[in-house]
């Protein structure tokens, strides 16, 4: 099967900064693909390279098997939902949505019918004649989505589309976007810096750091088997021990990760459980999260580790900042990582 989007050793440099540094990837038709990374990691530049707003300095961008490396955006069969929505302020909602067919010379009656259908699809019927300025953030988001979908693109690009919405609306839209994608069967490429969003919505996630892909895998694999310290920390929020710290804990310099829920907190007076790695440290803070508590403990070895425990379990432990505790985790909960 031909990939919907393919990058072959793509590079893009801005002055001295290698924004995208030799990225290769392949996105299957109908896939919900997330590009995850901190700001400046190259994920948005990759999206712009797919859309055609930016052209690669080296390598090739392919859409549906065709090399589009230097094809302008208006000749690509992809559409974009912009971070700031980019709705045309001088047009009504229906004019915004009908813009794609309009510039493709579709007759006025037909494009209006299609625009109304699209507005129905995103549950925004009745707002046809409003101006973007009269809409809430969530409504603008839906208009942007309808406008991007009306041309029936093979690939829909979404650039941090939910970034400006409040938490509750964001969660609703996540579910809606996922359902919409399943129903339409369009390839979604979703850029975000929110790892929860990427993990919960996507079939696969590419984790970006310094212009490169650190790991490209399903959400479960990223969480359970992070390949690098960056992925372990950024995606799983896991504890990572590298170099000297790793050597003192397990006798080898190979870096490893332990997820916070696998770390037990014990009073220093207790003995070490059998078959576990242990380390003593000082409590920095304990944050109450309802069902669980999150412990931040400064290990005597220098690293700060986090542990997620049941709130009830935490209540009879010494939790004041400065209290001494022992952390323990089973050997088989550790994930060996690549590189330093």
């Amino acid at each position, binding site marked *: 099967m031909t990939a919907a989007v393919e990058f072959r050793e793509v590079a893009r440099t801005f002055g001295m900064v290698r924004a995208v540094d030799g990225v290769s990837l392949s996105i299957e038709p109908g896939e919900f693909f997330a590009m995850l990374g901190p700001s400046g990691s190259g994920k948005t530049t990759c999206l712009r390279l797919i859309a*055609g*707003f930016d052209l690669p300095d080296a390598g090739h961008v392919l859409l549906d098997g065709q090399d589009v490396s230097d094809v302008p955006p208006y000749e690509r069969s992809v559409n974009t939902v*912009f971070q700031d929505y*980019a709705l*045309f302020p001088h047009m009504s909602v229906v004019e915004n949505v009908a*813009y*794609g067919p309009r*510039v493709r010379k579709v007759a006025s009656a037909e494009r209006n019918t299609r625009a109304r259908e699209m507005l129905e699809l995103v549950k925004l019927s009745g707002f046809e004649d409003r101006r973007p300025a009269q809409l809430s953030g969530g409504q603008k988001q839906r208009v942007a989505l309808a406008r*991007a979908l009306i041309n029936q693109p093979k690939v829909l690009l979404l650039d941090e589309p939910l970034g400006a919405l409040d938490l509750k609306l964001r969660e609703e839209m996540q579910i809606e976007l996922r359902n919409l994608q399943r129903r339409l069967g369009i390839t979604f490429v979703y850029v975000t810096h929110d790892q929860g969003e990427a993990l919960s919505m996507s079939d696969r996630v590419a984790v970006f750091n310094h212009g490169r892909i650190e790991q490209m895998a399903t959400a479960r694999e990223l969480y359970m088997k992070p390949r690098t310290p960056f992925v372990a920390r950024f995606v799983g929020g896991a504890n990572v021990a590298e170099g000297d710290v790793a050597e003192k804990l397990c006798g080898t310099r190979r870096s490893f990760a332990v997820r916070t829920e696998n770390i037990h907190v014990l009073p220093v007076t207790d003995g070490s459980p059998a078959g576990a790695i242990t380390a003593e440290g000082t409590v920095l803070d304990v944050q109450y999260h309802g069902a669980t508590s999150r412990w931040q403990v400064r290990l005597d070895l220098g690293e700060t580790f986090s542990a997620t425990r049941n709130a009830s379990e935490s209540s009879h432990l010494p939790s004041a900042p400065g209290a001494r505790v022992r952390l323990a985790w089973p050997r088989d909960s550790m994930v060996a990582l690549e590189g330093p």
Partner: protein
Amino acid sequence: MNSIAGAISHPGPLRAFSSFLYRRSTFYLLLLLVPPLLWLGTVYLGTLFALLTQSIYSIDDFTAQIVRTPTLATYKQLLTQPANLDIVLRTLSMSISVTLAAAAIAFPIANYMVRYASARTKAAFYVAILVPMWVSYLVKVYAWRQILAKEGILSWFFNVIGAQGVLEAILQLPGIGGPSLASSYIGMFIVFVYMWLPYMILPIAAALERVPASLMQASADLGARPGTTFRTVIFPLAMPGLAAGSVFTFSLTLGDYIIPSIVGAPGYFIGMMVYQQQGTAGNIPLAAAFSVVPIVLIALYLMFVKRLGAFDAL
């Protein structure tokens, strides 16, 4: 020492006055607003009203005294005498031509400055646009008279490139030509466009600055070629700036009397007529009536551009 309570209970007349103003916010607002409103009301609107009043008086042809009874005779004189109508039409066509030319030159410059130039180039553009505005108006007009003169640098240049025929052909155009550029309507037009161009570039650039780049990307993303994007997105969103700039160039040309008296053909313009009627001729009512013409024309012009949808994007 409780410093918060200390600050609140700090006594003194200033403190009391401040508290009084804080409680009576309407009084405070009036206190701040009345002086500038008085200035605006008396100096601007008052004089405008006085001007309008003058225009409905008339002048006694025998005694040259102003007759202070309301009449439309002066307006009738203005609108029925062919010479006066000619002046109005001449000024109006010059203002429209200057506005169109300034817009045509300013738009690409403003668009380039805002959309494509680097920060440094953009700053250089702003300097290049603003600095000539600080130079004395008269110096610039007289400089242009030298440039456009029969023996001036422009005709010298046409000679050098062997195109004196072109210049002569231009000068022989009926109506707008003349013995030299400095004594033709074309020359006057060039000077007007030069003078008012910054007033057109700056508002257009300001309007374009407010258009986010993502709108152009969205347009291209949806399949619009650059020309279509310009027509459907950039131009409509720049319209308020274009309208503002054109009000400047249009009204400045309508009211100017110095450029037509220094450069160009002998035909009268509204500004010159006002100057002459209120000065040497002593016909204040006719001068006032002539002054009303630009006001009416600009009001009509604003209605026209509003109809075109120039302010929809505001």
